[in-house]
């Protein structure tokens, strides 16, 4: 269980992006703690915490007394227990979302405050503006932000590791998500239906709308989603 604050999360993202860009290659050491913390404008404890997260993701390894060495991404993929997601296919991620998100929106519908509803609606408004401005980049960002907000609203720390995984996967598939403006319009409509249900505190309806959204998402991506039939009909 890694305590994560917004600062740490954003530093993790920054470092991940830098690693993905190849700013440091595998086998290389990251700059010293003090230097790196200064570069990123954060405290050393926050940096250390971010490094622990990166270590958990199998991207770097701390060498006591020496520094932090960058691991080869492809190498740590198959072998590390903690980087399963890097190897995840879009179908895996949709299946995972289908398993968790209908439940999550159901929970959120039970406990949400009107202020929080307002926040969700603002994010949807961002999505609408992006659509109208034909800015697919911003559209995808708003979509991912919406997804992350829903997880955060459960205030259940158990889901925090999984939201990091799924939103990273969404970011990786941003190419697919950006592909067409009609898709963004549909996505917005479906998410609006989810928020309407949440707003009227209708858990069951929120779950139904989320299920529908994820199935459609699969169709849009050209993925035939394998959802085993619930034999018990529960």
């Amino acid at each position, binding site marked *: *269980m*890694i*305590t994560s604050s917004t600062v740490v999360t954003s530093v993790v993202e920054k470092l991940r992006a830098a690693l993905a860009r190849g700013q440091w290659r*595998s*086998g290389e*050491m990251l700059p010293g703690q003090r230097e790196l913390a200064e570069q990123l404008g954060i405290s050393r*404890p*926050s940096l*250390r*915490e971010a490094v*622990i997260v990166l*270590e*958990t993701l*199998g991207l770097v*390894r*701390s*060498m*006591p007394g*020496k520094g932090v*060495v960058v*691991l*080869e991404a492809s*190498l*740590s993929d198959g*072998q*590390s*227990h*903690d980087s*399963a*997601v890097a*190897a*995840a296919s879009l179908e*895996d*991620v949709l*299946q*995972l979302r289908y*398993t*968790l998100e209908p*439940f999550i929106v159901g929970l959120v519908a039970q406990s949400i405050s009107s202020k929080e509803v307002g926040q969700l609606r603002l994010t949807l408004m961002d999505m609408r503006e992006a659509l109208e401005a034909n800015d697919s980049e911003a559209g995808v960002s708003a979509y991912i932000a919406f997804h992350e907000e829903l997880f955060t609203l459960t205030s*259940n720390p*158990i*889901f925090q*590791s*999984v939201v990091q*995984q*799924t939103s990273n*996967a969404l970011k990786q598939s941003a190419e697919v998500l950006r592909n067409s403006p009609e898709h963004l319009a549909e996505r917005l409509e479906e998410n609006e239906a989810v928020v309407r249900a949440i707003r009227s505190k209708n858990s069951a309806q929120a779950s139904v709308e989320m299920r529908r959204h994820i199935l459609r998402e699969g169709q849009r991506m050209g993925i035939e989603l*394998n959802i*085993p*039939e*619930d*034999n*018990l009909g529960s």
Partner: protein
Amino acid sequence: MNNYASPQTLATLPVRPSVDDLYSRVLDAIFEQRIHSASRFTEESLAQMFGARRSDMRDVLTRLSHQQVIILRVNHRPRVAELDVEQTRQTLHARRLAEVMLVRLACQRPCAQGLKRLRTLVDNERQCAERGRAIRLSVEFHLQLAQMAGNAPLAHFLESLVPLTSLAIAQFDLQQKDYYVEHMEMLDALERGDAATAQVVLNRHLDYLEDLLLNPASALGQNCAAG
């Protein structure tokens, strides 16, 4: 001169076999409550205790922290998580969602090799007399079954939930019933590709855990009756 292997060498060997073994030994100790939430230890003292290299112990602690069993915080000693009833409830809930889906997926594609591994595991469980090890083997059963579903991120999520429920069992100091019987039932269903039965067995198992862990009072009553 330094005694460390070069970073490059270490980087090519992210998980050495000895680390898996060390992981099992540490987890056994936690499940046996030889190391518990009030224990004071550091990466170094643990490494000494287990006669392991500090870097290997670090790997083990990192993995256990993903499994939520160990809490790692900057400027604090590592410690064993301590669960309250609410966390246990949430964990069990999330676990039910993920595991039901994983079991249904696994039933679509039971592979001979995976089934064989699970059989061996259940055999070991049946023969195991030590409590801590029995709990760990039971965790392994659930996680290996999840692997068979072929959805890595979902199985990964389950990996952060199952050890935690087992930790709760260990911490509440409840009598562990013989889970291998249920595991065998589940395995038989899996072999037949019988998702309905597998799901019934799993739900029964989770209902039982919920009852045990969320109503400490009634569980206490059971223990008194039993003892």
